[in-house]
């Protein structure tokens, strides 16, 4: 049984997992130069700590624009799979982007949402997902039918493997604990952008 097929896993019975562990599990499945766009803050930091693949882009500002940036890369490079790593607070800030993704239906885009119910990096104030909002329900409402909670680590691995087959945009939401990120990125936006463009073959 997978959550994607059954829809049985809800935000309330999904296992609380660890972001760095899941990030490493995700990266371990990337064998075809997949692009990964890390959202500002801890999503980025754990991506950095998981190994600095040249196809990783670390967004240092512009909270909320992870998925829009990933959509842009996916449009420009339809043969390459693109993964956005975004937090619950960031997604809430630019939730309309899910409607845009649904309208475009890119086959090569996967959105991974780390939901700890916190604005963790700014002092751990609760987000709306800690009490009332369900990001998977919101994504489905936006038109992204292939949106689901990962029930546990094995479920997450299977959902990632399914998403990487490229059948359509997939949103995988994971409930995560309150542990801080393991690393921290460099802070040079030009170097980060340039390395990424070389990594995905845009620059020689």
């Amino acid at each position: 049984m997978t959550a994607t097929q059954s829809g049985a896993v809800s935000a309330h019975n999904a296992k609380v997992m660890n972001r760095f562990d899941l990030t490493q599990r995700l990266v371990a499945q990337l064998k075809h130069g997949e692009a990964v766009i890390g959202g500002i803050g801890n999503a980025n930091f754990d991506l950095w700590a998981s190994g600095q693949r040249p196809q990783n882009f670390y967004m240092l500002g512009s909270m909320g624009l992870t998925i829009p940036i990933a959509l842009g890369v996916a449009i420009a490079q339809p043969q390459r799979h693109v993964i956005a790593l975004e937090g619950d607070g960031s997604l809430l800030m630019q939730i309309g982007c899910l409607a845009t993704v649904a309208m475009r239906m890119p086959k090569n885009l996967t959105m991974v949402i780390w939901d700890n119910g916190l604005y963790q990096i700014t002092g751990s104030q609760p987000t709306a997902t800690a009490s009332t909002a369900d990001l998977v329900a919101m994504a489905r409402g936006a038109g992204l039918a292939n949106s689901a909670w990962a029930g546990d680590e094995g479920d997450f691995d299977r959902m990632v493997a399914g998403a990487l087959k490229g059948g359509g945009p997939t949103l995988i939401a994971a409930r995560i604990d309150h542990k801080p990120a393991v690393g921290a990125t460099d802070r040079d936006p030009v170097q980060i952008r340039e390395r990424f463009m070389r990594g995905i073959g845009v620059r020689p």
Partner: protein
Amino acid sequence: MTKKPTQPAPWYEIVLATLKANEVKLVVYVPDKVFTPLIKAIHADPYFIAFTATREEEAIGIVTGAWMGGMRGAVLMQTSGFGTLPNALASLVVPSQIPALIFVSERGTLGEFNLGQALVCRTMRPVLDSIGIETHTITRYDELEFIVDRSIKQAVATQAPVTFILSPLLTGGKVFQH
């Protein structure tokens, strides 16, 4: 019998042709009444990938990703929409050196009837100046192609964004209706 003089192409066809000539394939926009003929013409041309974003900064994110993936992109919006952009420009586009091509339909001046538009309009150029984004206000038809064409080339060559503010003097603007 003399041949009837041909009508010059409307402003929006000049913009469309100049985008195409410069291989700007992606156009993401939040709609604007004055830009409607431009948006329609872009959608009618299969060269372009064109769609709406729910918010102007989202459009900026999308063209940023596209540029990094090897595709040039422009965003279209009206003046009030520009008001949503300062963070995306100052924390993404400028520091990452992204040649985002930003077209703004100018509201808030030359006959504006909505006070909110007029006030947002006053914030636009100071914001652009403060973060050093090259900005051209285009008022004249005969300068349109030159400014847009050369500025797109400069944006790409220098890896810097550029803003084109299309004045009601060029587009006709939006007229108050009782």
